[in-house]
């Protein structure tokens, strides 16, 4: 009897696998393919060969006059340091009353990546803390903290007390590779001080996030939902330990749930909403999408400031221009693809099953207003899906359908250029990893097996794997 059941089980698994293979469905075990070894990370027109500090700030090739004008103006808005209303420049005021930084570029320096504060910096410059309490809003999103809202705004305009400060302490966690070489990763812990509006309470849920790089998003927006969804495997039916779940989030323009594709937890359905959300939460600017200012009940000084300035503070025209700017930001070309070490590292990347979630290749659809983004083969190294990354990385703060241990696979394109653009190599959602290897070593949950595989690598192999990542 026992034997018969085992036979049936094996037969069922075998058949299921065959069906998957015959249907050509993507199993999450991505095999190495040299087709993916291309410099054209962003496809033909949206890849630029620039490896300098402006590598993330380039538009797609051959912009016509009209789009160049919008791009450059959007860039200007991205760099604009917004000021308090009322000011002599009504179009560029409305900062706060509560905010984190006064410009987009303040966190996304040169369209790049933020980091935790360095020891000599006394405040968070390109990192913030999302806040909520258990429960969900009507739209299904995290329930904002009753006193502090959706994030801790560490700055206020004159006369409005900032909400508080974040103190981070780091604890080293040593480990060893199989070959005996020791390493250490650092675990952050957070303390909130100078809280101006009362205690955060025992129920508070918080999630630290660094500003991600913002190029290539126009391409990711053009990837069809079906292309993303075909990689999902929520019940892990192929038994590879890797699930891949979609997040469904509220689309404020459409007033309905949509597939989330952007943000650390895939909690934004499109770029425009992502930008309007950042204007609102990070800079304290209203838009027609988010007309409610960054004050909460009980913040009397904040509410008093609301009578100043025109509403919305960012006009639809400006919101559209900055959205176009960010859509048009091209992807830096991959480098050193012929390098021996890079090629060996690339194979190791597949062998360790990294490519199961960091999907090398996606194909865009044809919904973009910019023809350059349509029908492109791109290499973002993400499946845009949520994965359980284990307790080590968990923020334990649900965000729509994303659970406390789940994170969206971040794209890896351009990751080797962060050091050139942002002069640092801090990675992961909270910037805890001090280099790419530390980032790899934090992978747990569905990625536990991949991490174990990396631990087994020899020193040369580890160097090769890093060389490959640096080439992206």
């Amino acid at each position, binding site marked *: 009897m026992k034997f018969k059941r085992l036979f049936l089980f094996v037969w069922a698994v075998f058949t299921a696998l065959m069906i998957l293979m015959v249907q050509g469905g993507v199993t999450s075990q991505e095999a190495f393919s040299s087709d993916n070894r291309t410099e054209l990370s962003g496809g033909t027109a949206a890849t630029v060969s620039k*490896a300098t500090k402006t590598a993330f700030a380039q538009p797609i090739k051959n912009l016509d*006059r009209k789009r160049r004008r919008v791009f*450059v*103006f959007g860039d200007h808005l991205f760099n604009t340091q917004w000021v308090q209303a009322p000011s002599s420049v009504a179009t560029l005021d409305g900062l706060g009353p509560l905010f984190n930084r006064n410009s987009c*570029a303040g966190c996304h*320096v040169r369209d790049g990546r933020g980091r935790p504060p360095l020891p000599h910096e006394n405040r968070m410059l390109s990192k913030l803390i999302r806040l909520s309490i258990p429960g969900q809003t009507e739209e299904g999103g995290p329930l904002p903290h009753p006193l502090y809202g959706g994030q801790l705004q560490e700055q206020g305009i004159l006369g409005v007390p900032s909400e508080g400060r974040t103190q981070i302490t780091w604890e080293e966690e040593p480990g060893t590779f199989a070959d005996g070489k020791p390493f250490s990763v650092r675990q952050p812990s957070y303390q909130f001080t100078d809280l101006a509006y009362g205690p955060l309470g025992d129920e508070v849920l918080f999630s630290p996030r660094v500003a991600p790089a913002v190029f290539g998003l126009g391409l990711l927006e053009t990837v069809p939902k079906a292309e993303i969804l075909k990689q999902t495997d929520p019940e892990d039916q192929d038994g590879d330990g890797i699930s891949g779940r979609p997040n469904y989030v509220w689309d404020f323009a459409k007033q309905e749930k949509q597939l989330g594709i952007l943000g650390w937890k895939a909690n934004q359905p499109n770029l425009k909403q992502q930008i309007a959300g950042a204007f609102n939460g990070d800079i304290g600017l209203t838009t027609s999408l988010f007309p409610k200012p960054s004050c909460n009940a009980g913040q009397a000084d904040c509410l008093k400031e609301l009578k100043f300035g025109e509403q919305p503070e960012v006009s639809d025209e400006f919101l559209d221009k900055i959205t176009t700017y960010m859509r048009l930001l091209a992807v830096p070309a991959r480098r050193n693809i012929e390098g021996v070490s890079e090629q060996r590292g690339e194979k190791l990347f597949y062998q360790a099953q990294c490519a199961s979630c960091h999907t090398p290749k996606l194909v865009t659809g044809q919904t973009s207003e910019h023809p350059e983004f349509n029908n492109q083969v791109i290499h973002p190294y993400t499946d845009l899906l949520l994965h359980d990354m284990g307790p080590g990385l968990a923020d334990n703060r649900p965000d729509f359908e994303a659970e406390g241990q789940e994170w969206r696979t971040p794209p890896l394109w351009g990751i080797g250029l962060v*050091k*050139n653009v942002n002069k640092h190599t801090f990675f992961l959602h909270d910037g805890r990893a001090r280099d790419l290897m530390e980032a790899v070593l934090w992978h747990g949950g569905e990625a536990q097996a991949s991490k174990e595989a990396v631990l087994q690598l020899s020193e040369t192999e580890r160097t090769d794997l890093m060389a490959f990542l640096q080439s992206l």
Partner: protein
Amino acid sequence: MMISPRLSQTLSCLLCCSVTLTTVGVVNAHHHDKAGRQQTIAAKNVDLTPYVENYAEVVFRNYQDARTQAAMMQVAITAFLNNPNETSHKAAQDAWVQARQSYLQTEAFRFYEGPIDFVDAKTGEEGPEGRINAWPMNEAFIDYVKEKPDSGLINNPKFELSIAAIMENDQVTDEADVTTGWHAIEFLLWGQDFNNEGPGQRSFTDFVPNQNNNDRRRQYLTLVTQQLVSDLTFLETEWKPNAENYRAKFLKGDPKATVGKIFTALATLSAFEMASERMTVALDSGNQEDEHSCFSDTTYQDFVFNAKGISNVYFGDYAGYQGKGFDELLAQMNPDLNQKITAALTTTEESASQIDQPFDQVLASAQGSPQRAEVEAVVTALENQGEAFKELGPVLGTSVEILAE
């Protein structure tokens, strides 16, 4: 200079890939075929070397002038600091305005990773452009601004003033946190511009010693002025004739590729940097002070001398020097395109000279005003000019692009 050895490595890499051109010494004038169509001389039969050599000479003379003028400004600033009063303050400001004129023309030599804006991919080391001319800048990062009397590095006694420390803080956590260069000096000399009719109204008394943080301000101005002169000296040195420097390697490179870079620089300065970054952004923002040289209200001369720099390269001239210009080459290879470019350069220079002064008055004017239309005309002229330069690519057998930096 300390940067040169690494620069040489980058260059020698470029040279490995270059292809030696077979050149024919004699170039015949264009002729017409039986149907009367104009025949242009194929790129492969043209020796570009003399034109590239002349370009290098123009670059050198321009940087030499820029360094000389900046050194004169430094003398005026020193005199001002030694004896701060209205007259010496005005003399320092005048010296800044004068010195800018030659520097602005050198902007035609950017955008191809020459000494001004090279990047060493391995070390991340970069040319001095960002240090020399970065803008827009967050004034409050350097010194006090309206309603913030204590802001800036100058008013932070904990910040130890040295050129190394100032450069270390340049554009680190924000691109706008500019600490050095022309516009930092401009801000220190003029102050914020809240004057609708003219430039900023900073008083010389900000530089009288032994008061408030004036000594720190004096030191700051001295240090950044010194750095500017030193950066310009580096550029001049890299372009000196008959030396082991960038110029030597530049002249050994594939002339076609080199000419591609020269014109990519001109196309980019025209259609991107001038037309878009410095003109349309200002027009579209509705902010009177959204202009390149906002403290001194000298944005007008920025346009005029940038345009002049582009013409210098095309015609192969600088100030009194006249050399073998690309116009001579094009007159042989493709007279129509030569005419088109020459006309575009003239239109740009003429229309730029028509812009109302000061430029911030244009920005303050209503949508659809004649003042705005004048600037829109320059934008169009510059875009036409950029696109005409792009057409040179196929004619010269190279690639000319409009980059967006």
